[in-house]
C-alpha cells in the first residue's frame, strides 16, 4: 500500500531507506536544478577532484529547465524534463553523496543499481504540470553556469513539492510494477 511522507532536505539514508516505489512524498527545503549540460560540468568537476557549486551530501537534483519568471515571482513554470538523458551522469552523483533525483520517465539499469548501492531515490514529478509545480517553489537563485540560460544550476526552496517514488533503494521500479498490473495480453 502506498504511503505519504513529508521529507525535509538534506535527505539522510534513514529517510531514503524507508521509501518504497509508489509512495508519495511532499518535499520541503532546498533542492538543486541541473539538466544535461550542467550535469556534464558537475561530473567533470567531480572527476577532476574540484569543488562543486553546492554540497552534494544528501542533496536532491531536479531535472528541470524552467520558464523565465514574471516580474516579482521567483520562477516560472517548472515541471520535470525526461530523465534518461541524465542516466550517464546520475550514478556518479549518487556515489558522491547525492540521495535524490526528480524527473520523469524511465532510468537505465545502472541508475537503478546505483540507487540500491548508495541508498538513492529516483522521484517522479508530474510532467506537464509546470504551472502547478512552479507554485511549490518559493525561491530560486542561479548559483552556477548562468550562460546555460534555462539549463543553469539553480538553488530552489520548495514547499510541499509533490513527487512519487519511482525507483527505491530495494531495486523496485514503479513503471514496471504499474505497467505489469494494467497490461492486457491477448
Amino acid at each position, binding site marked *: 500500500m*502506498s504511503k505519504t511522507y513529508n521529507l525535509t532536505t538534506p535527505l539522510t539514508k534513514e529517510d531514503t531507506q524507508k521509501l518504497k516505489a*509508489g509512495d508519495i512524498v511532499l518535499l520541503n527545503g532546498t533542492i538543486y536544478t541541473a539538466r*544535461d*549540460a550542467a550535469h556534464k560540468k558537475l561530473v567533470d568537476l567531480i572527476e577532476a577532484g574540484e569543488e562543486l557549486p553546492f554540497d552534494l551530501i544528501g542533496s536532491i537534483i531536479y531535472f*528541470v*529547465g*524552467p*520558464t*523565465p*519568471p*514574471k516580474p516579482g515571482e521567483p520562477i*516560472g*513554470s*517548472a*515541471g520535470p*524534463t*525526461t530523465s*534518461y538523458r541524465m542516466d550517464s551522469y546520475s550514478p556518479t552523483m549518487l556515489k558522491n553523496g547525492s540521495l535524490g533525483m526528480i524527473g*520523469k*520517465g*524511465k532510468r537505465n539499469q545502472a541508475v537503478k543499481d546505483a540507487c540500491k548501492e548508495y541508498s538513492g531515490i529516483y522521484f*517522479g514529478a*508530474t*510532467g*506537464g*504540470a*509546470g*504551472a*502547478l509545480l*512552479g*507554485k511549490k517553489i518559493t525561491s530560486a537563485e542561479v548559483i552556477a553556469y548562468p550562460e*546555460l*540560460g*534555462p539549463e543553469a544550476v539553480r538553488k530552489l526552496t520548495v514547499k510541499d513539492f*509533490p513527487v*512519487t517514488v519511482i525507483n527505491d533503494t530495494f531495486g523496485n521500479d*514503479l*513503471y514496471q*510494477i*504499474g*505497467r*505489469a*498490473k*494494467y*497490461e*492486457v*495480453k*491477448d
Partner: protein
Amino acid sequence: MREIQYQDVVTAIKNVIIHCGTILPDDAYKAIKDAHDNEKSPVAKEVLAQLLINADIAKDEKRPLCQDTGLAVFFVNVGADCRIIGGLLRDAINEGTEQGYKDAYLRASTCEPFSRANLKDTVGYNLPAIIHFDIVAGDKIEVEYAAKGGGSENVSRATVFPPAAGKAGIIEYVKQVISDAGGNPCPPLTVGVGIGGTFEKAGISSKHALFRTIGSVNKDPEMAEMEAEIKVELNKLGIGTMGMGGIETVLAVHIESNPCHIASLPVSVNVQCHSSRHAHITI
C-alpha cells in the same frame, strides 16, 4: 487581390502563441477529464486530476502550462488571392513567434545542434519557427499552430515498409513505438500516424494529424476504423498516465493517409504529450 498588412500577421501570430502557452484547448481538457473519469489506477487518476488543476492554474494566472513551451510549429495555407504588404510572410510569422514567446514569459528552447548554444540572442527568441506552407484557393491565410514539446518529439519514429507489411505491419510498428516510449513522452498521448507519400510526406502528415481536434472522427471510414483499432491496442499496453500504469495511455490516434509509390509503404509516428497546445486561426 486582398492586401494583408505585415503587422496584422505579426499580431495574430503573437496572440495565438500567448493563448496556446497558457490555455489548454477545450478538446485536450475534455479528453484528459474523460480519461480521469474512466481511469482505474488510483495513482494515474490522481495524476490526471493534477493535470486538470494545472490547466486551471495556468489559465487563471496566465502561467505557462508546461515549462517546455515547445518549438513553434505552423501549417500555413496561403490563399492565392492575397498578398502581404510590408514584408515577407515567413518573417511576420517569426516576428510574431518571438514577440509571443517573450511577452508571455515562455521558454526559449531553440539551440545550435552541436554546441547546444541557445539561439535567443543570435537567431531570435525561440526562433526559427518550423513553418510548412501551402498555396490554396481564396484570399485568406489559414494558420494551424502547435507548441511542440521535446519529450514527445524524442520518441517519434519513421520507417519505410515494403508494401506487403500492410495494415498489420503498420499497427505493429505503432505499438512498438509507443511501447518503447513508455512514460517518457508524458502520456496520455495523441498519436499522429502518417501513412504513404514519400519518406518526408509521411513525417509531415504524422505531424499534421496531431493538429486535428482530439476526439473528432476521421472523414475516411476505413482510417476511422483503423484509428479505433490502434487506440484499443495501445491502451492494452498498460503504460498509463506518466508511465505509472493504467488503462488510459492514449487519448486519440489520428491518421493521415496519402497515395504512395508502388514499391513503398512509408509510415511515420509523431507523438504528442497530454499538453496538446494547438489552435487554428484565419487571417
